[in-house]
């Protein structure tokens, strides 16, 4: 009993304006976009950890994590690395140019499960982009969560994304910021080494009371999870967000399939418990 | 023009490939004329050595995209002779249909898009379209139709692999044939309008000189584009297997294409040779067209080759209808199989621009020798001769305006497909 005329086309891209953009570091750019239709822009909401499909007509469409928090509505923020045809085209766009988006897609982080808990955010490199969303969500709803630890490892101080923002966070008392770089440069006084080296700075925690969220390059997960398990954090309280090739965002095209799950609808956030069942996951 | 001047026309615009004409003039006298073929050597006859006929059939059409199906057809005729393959009537007719497609495609491209702009004084067909929009539109449609025939019979537009030893990989259904028949009939009026247009043109005479014409004589009473007998305008006939004694070849340093001669003199092949040698076999509208256009000057003036192409377009459209009508009566043919693995054969086909000969020697299923003589290789010496004549007559009349363009027109009239001139002699295999 489907009348196509009245069915929404889930693949329909909607126009959005690039409100502002600037380079984070070389080949990494920050975009603020807003639906052209103002009422749509104001009603648009999402969960931290969700993503958008972004199109440039004639070039194509790809998924991008939302880096802003729904607690600050009206503007969608994306952090994008220039890696190919679509991002090349996107980087040529100027302020006020139009791109096309649809979404939000994916499950997002399990906020309900995280409420009342201590939050441990572990980001590696580009992985900080989706985690920035949950980071600010927690900060904006500070009373709903316990202690907040934010670990971020970058290759070098120069390659830290959102460096100014994140350095300012260190001045807040309601968050513990731990940063590390693989290679220090002059003036860097923080930790040097991979992100797992930061775990030694964690105070004693009650593992049952902690929710960890992890995102980073594929090689990072194994090592970080080992540390989290050492802390005895329950497997279903470890969440990670994954990247996969996607062509639809709504569980049809098949590309992001992991076992019987689709990264686009059952993910991109999975718990470590999930990955034990689906060995291909990480 | 008192001191030595060298006129170079390079590249030869709108000639497919890499031709260049070099004319050396000293004290108002033509010293030297060279049509240079500087496209690199490809050594096709060595490429097929040790290969199966199936591979030969895939490799040799790559000599020239424009007449790729002529090469395929000639190779099929040569290889089938060598291997004792006799194709049924329907297969032969499908091949004729295919060949009509290529003939129409090539002639329409050359006549409407390359030659007519010259006659009418335009840079290209797009410029010509402003005043002759109707002609260009219809010509485009005709060419498209011809491409369709090539695509259906060849398998794709260029280098289709549908024609195979003994038959075809895939044949069109009756519905498709009917459609092609209707379309062919539909283009006849336009082809006849073209005859009217040509009849109204003035054809310059600055290059005129006597020459001889060679073509293949069809194995039936009618006009046609293949055969096993070489027919010369002097009335002589030769078995195509003896082609080496009829057409002598030589190598020149300014050309990777070899040069053929008949009785030690340059000669002309192509549409004009066919219409002159076989024109009295034409019937119907094609006969009307031929009678309307042909005159004594054709024997001296290569520009009439374009007129001959127009006559052949009419013939091809009419003959396609005949071929399809017969095919609709016949069952789909079986693929004919080789009866031997060792043998020798020369396949003769009239490519759009003239006689194309493919000679193969097969031993135990593998190619031990091959010789391919392309039409361009046959007429290049004659092109040089006509260019020399044109230069001399223009110089003597002191007509130096558009000198290069007028020489180019002469070369272009031959419809030289330069890429197909990369050609070789027989390689004797030890």
């Amino acid at each position, binding site marked *: *009993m*489907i009348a*196509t005329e009245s*069915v*929404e*086309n*889930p*693949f*329909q*891209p909607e*126009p959005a304006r690039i409100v502002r953009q600037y380079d984070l570091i070389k080949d990494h750019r920050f975009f603020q976009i807003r639906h052209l239709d103002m009422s749509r822009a104001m009603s648009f909401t999402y969960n931290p950890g969700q993503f958008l499909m972004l*199109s440039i*007509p*004639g*070039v*194509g*469409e*790809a998924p991008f994590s939302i880096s802003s928090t729904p607690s600050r509505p009206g503007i969608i923020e994306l952090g994008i*690395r220039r*890696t*190919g*045809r*679509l*991002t090349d085209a996107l980087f040529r766009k100027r302020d006020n140019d139009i791109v*096309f988006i649809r979404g939000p897609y994916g499950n997002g982080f399990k906020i309900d499960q995280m409420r009342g808990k201590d939050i441990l955010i572990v980001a590696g490199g580009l992985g900080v982009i989706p985690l920035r969303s949950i980071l600010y969500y927690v900060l904006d709803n500070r009373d709903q969560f316990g202690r907040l630890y934010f670990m971020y490892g970058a290759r070098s101080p120069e390659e830290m994304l959102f460096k100014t923002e994140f350095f300012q966070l260190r001045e807040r008392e309601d968050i513990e910021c731990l940063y590390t770089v693989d290679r220090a440069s002059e003036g860097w006084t923080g930790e040097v080494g991979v992100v797992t080296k930061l775990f030694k700075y964690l105070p004693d925690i009650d593992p049952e009371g902690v929710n960890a969220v992890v995102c980073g390059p*594929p090689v990072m997960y194994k090592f970080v999870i080992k540390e989290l398990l050492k802390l005895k954090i329950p497997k279903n309280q470890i969440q990670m967000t994954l*990247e*996969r*090739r996607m*062509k*639809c965002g*709504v*569980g*049809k*095209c*098949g*590309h992001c*399939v992991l*076992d*019987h799950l689709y990264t686009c609808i059952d993910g991109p956030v999975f718990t470590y418990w999930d990955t034990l069942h689906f*060995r*291909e996951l990480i | 023009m008192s001191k030595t001047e060298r006129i170079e026309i390079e590249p030869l615009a709108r000639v497919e490939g890499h031709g260049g004409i070099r004319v050396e003039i000293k004290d108002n006298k033509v010293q030297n004329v060279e049509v240079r073929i500087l496209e690199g050597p490809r050594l096709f006859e060595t490429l097929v050595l040790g290969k199966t006929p199936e591979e030969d059939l895939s490799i040799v059409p790559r000599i020239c995209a424009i007449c790729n199906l002529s090469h395929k057809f000639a190779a099929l005729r040569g290889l089938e002779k060598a291997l004792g393959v006799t194709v049924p009537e329907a297969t032969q007719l499908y091949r004729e249909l295919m060949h009509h497609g290529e003939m129409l495609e090539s002639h329409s491209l050359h006549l409407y898009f390359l030659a007519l702009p010259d006659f009418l004084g335009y840079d290209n067909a797009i410029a010509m379209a402003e005043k002759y929009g109707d002609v260009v539109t219809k010509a485009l449609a005709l060419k498209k139709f011809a491409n369709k025939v090539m695509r259906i019979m060849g398998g794709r537009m260029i280098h289709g692999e549908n024609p195979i030893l003994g038959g075809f990989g*895939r044949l069109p259904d009756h*519905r498709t044939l009917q459609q092609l028949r209707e379309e062919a009939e539909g283009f006849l009026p336009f082809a006849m309008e073209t005859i009217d247009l040509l009849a109204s043109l003035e054809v310059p005479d600055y290059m005129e000189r006597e020459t001889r014409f060679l073509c293949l004589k069809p194995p039936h009473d009618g006009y046609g584009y293949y055969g096993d007998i070489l027919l010369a305008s002097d009335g002589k006939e030769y078995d195509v297997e003896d082609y080496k004694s009829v057409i002598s070849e030589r190598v020149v340093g300014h050309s990777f294409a070899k040069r053929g001669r008949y009785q030690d003199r340059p000669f002309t092949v192509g549409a004009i040779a066919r219409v002159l040698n076989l024109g009295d076999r034409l019937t119907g509208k094609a006969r009307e067209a031929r009678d309307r256009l042909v005159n004594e000057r054709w024997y001296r003036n290569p520009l009439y080759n374009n007129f001959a192409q127009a006559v052949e377009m009419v013939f091809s459209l009419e003959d396609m209808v005949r071929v399809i009508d017969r095919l609709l009566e016949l069952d789909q043919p079986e693929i004919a199989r080789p009866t031997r693995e060792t043998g020798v054969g020369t396949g003769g086909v009239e490519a759009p621009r003239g006689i194309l000969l493919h000679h193969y020697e097969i031993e135990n299923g593998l190619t031990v020798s091959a010789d391919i003589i392309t039409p361009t290789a046959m007429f290049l010496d004659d092109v040089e001769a006509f260019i020399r004549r044109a230069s001399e007559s223009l110089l003597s009349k002191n007509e130096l305006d558009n000198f290069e363009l007028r020489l180019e027109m002469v070369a272009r009239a031959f419809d030289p497909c330069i890429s197909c001139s990369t050609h070789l002699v027989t390689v004797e295999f030890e």
Partner: protein
Amino acid sequence: MPHQLRLIRNDVAPAPTFQTGWVPTVRILKMEPKYFQAFIESLDKFGRVYAPVRRNGVLTWDTPERFEEIVLGGEHTMIPVKKLFHPMRFDMFRFDDSGFTPDYSSSEKRVIVGVPPCEIHSLLRLDEVFMERPVDPYYAQQRRDSAIIGYSCLPGENCFCRSTGTDIVEEGFDLFFVNLGEFYLVWVGSSLGHDMVLVHEDFFDDSVSHDDIKKYIAWRKKRDGMFKKSFDFRSMPDLMELSYESPIWEGFAERCLSCGQCTMVCPTCNCYNVVDVLDISSATSGRRERHWDSCMFVDYSLVAGGHNFRGARAERLKLWYTHKLRAYASEYGKPACIGCGRCVEACPVDINVLTVAEALVTMEVPAR
């Protein structure tokens, strides 16, 4: 063909999945063979008729020029009926500077004649993917616009649909013809099917006798005895799970040509790629196309920046078989394999559900 139980318990009606209407009870009718052609020819008023016909030597779903062209009752088409619902290539949108406009023009009213039970099952499997919210409007429209006329078949050389439970069908058709030789039993599966019957009511007889039922049961028995291939599907999920690290994957990967034929011919494979094609024009206009894709191809899991989650051939093979034999079942409670045997016929190097299933048991990659 419909489940035997339905013959007697006609109070439980199959849900008419995608037709507009509801039939309170299953009607089972009889038809004499002499009426069959006229009946099929009468269906064109419900839409353009598609059926298995031979084109260039290959059986394919296409529009028959004549009734005689239709091939029914056994041989499979090489490409399954999914191509009529999930087209190999189509335009999803036209775009220009002002945005994307959906293109639904590829759909038309159709009557698909001769769909075997396994392929009806395959459509129900595809429904699980495409009709799940959010509904794929392209697929949904093709589904809504198509009537399914099922037709019974006898197993071919490589059929093993008894093992996958797809040799019988309870839903997903408008009419279903069981060919018993001397007559047809015709199940009416939807109100549209009922409307079709009404056009030539005189062809049908609604008094199915006890004797007819006995003939049907005998035919079922005979058919059940004809299967030459089978495999134990129920143990597959566990076996797949246990074999995740098995060396057989590497063994099959050495042999696999990654040609993707298995996925193209598989009635339940639904993967696609989306590509924007610009017009040759200075304006930014063009179309967004959808094409069949395959998880056997190297770029299937390749993301921008060059990371390939399934660069190794073994990973790609494992994904497909895991998906067919375990993962889909965990999600939807039934295998994604419908036992048609197309992969058995299509693979030039004998990698298919049967050889893989066997290797999972023997831990040996069978010789070719």
